């Protein structure tokens, strides 16, 4: 079986899985884990958009 993900969906899957692990392992309480996981996810995705726009600007 072969799965083909485009760049953005690969980045979303990566961000989701890494954020869950970071949230669980880097904080002590459930509430903090959820908050930190969401923060990491937002940062990962935000980084993707920032890097994407930066590359678009560089190409111009």
């Amino acid at each position: 079986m072969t799965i083909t993900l485009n760049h953005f969906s690969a980045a979303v899957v990566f961000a989701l899985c890494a954020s869950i692990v970071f949230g669980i392992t880097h904080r002590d309480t459930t509430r903090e884990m959820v908050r930190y996981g969401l923060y990491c996810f937002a940062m990962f995705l935000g980084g993707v958009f920032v890097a994407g726009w930066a590359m678009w600007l560089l190409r111009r």
Partner: protein
Amino acid sequence: MANSTTDKKVAQAESISMMAVLAPAIGWLIPGAGHMIQKRWMRGLLLFLSIMSLFLLGLAMQGRIYKANGGDILDILGFVGDIGAGGLYILTSANDWGQGAIAFATADYGTKFMIVAGLLNFIAVADAYHIAIGKKR
């Protein structure tokens, strides 16, 4: 009375030291299992699903796993990342999966997915150890 208290403390210390070895070892072999044997069911399940998904998606995207004797320093670093996935890496190597040549971008993403899955499992193993020694709840 004093003897009974001392015995309890010794038994507790032995149980902690036993768990401090067992939890990381099992957690390395099966992602999230180090948390599950310490009754952190939900955390263990989420770790298992995240790390497993990343590794299996990497395989399905035709990613490549690195061998110990790669020769190149980057191959050795890739191997260090991959070996973190423990049982998944052993299973993949034993079945000769993940041997495709990286001919397209998706396969390269897959290779990185598997390395990151291993590295995330290292973090999960360290967390299981911290729970076992009482440093984390």
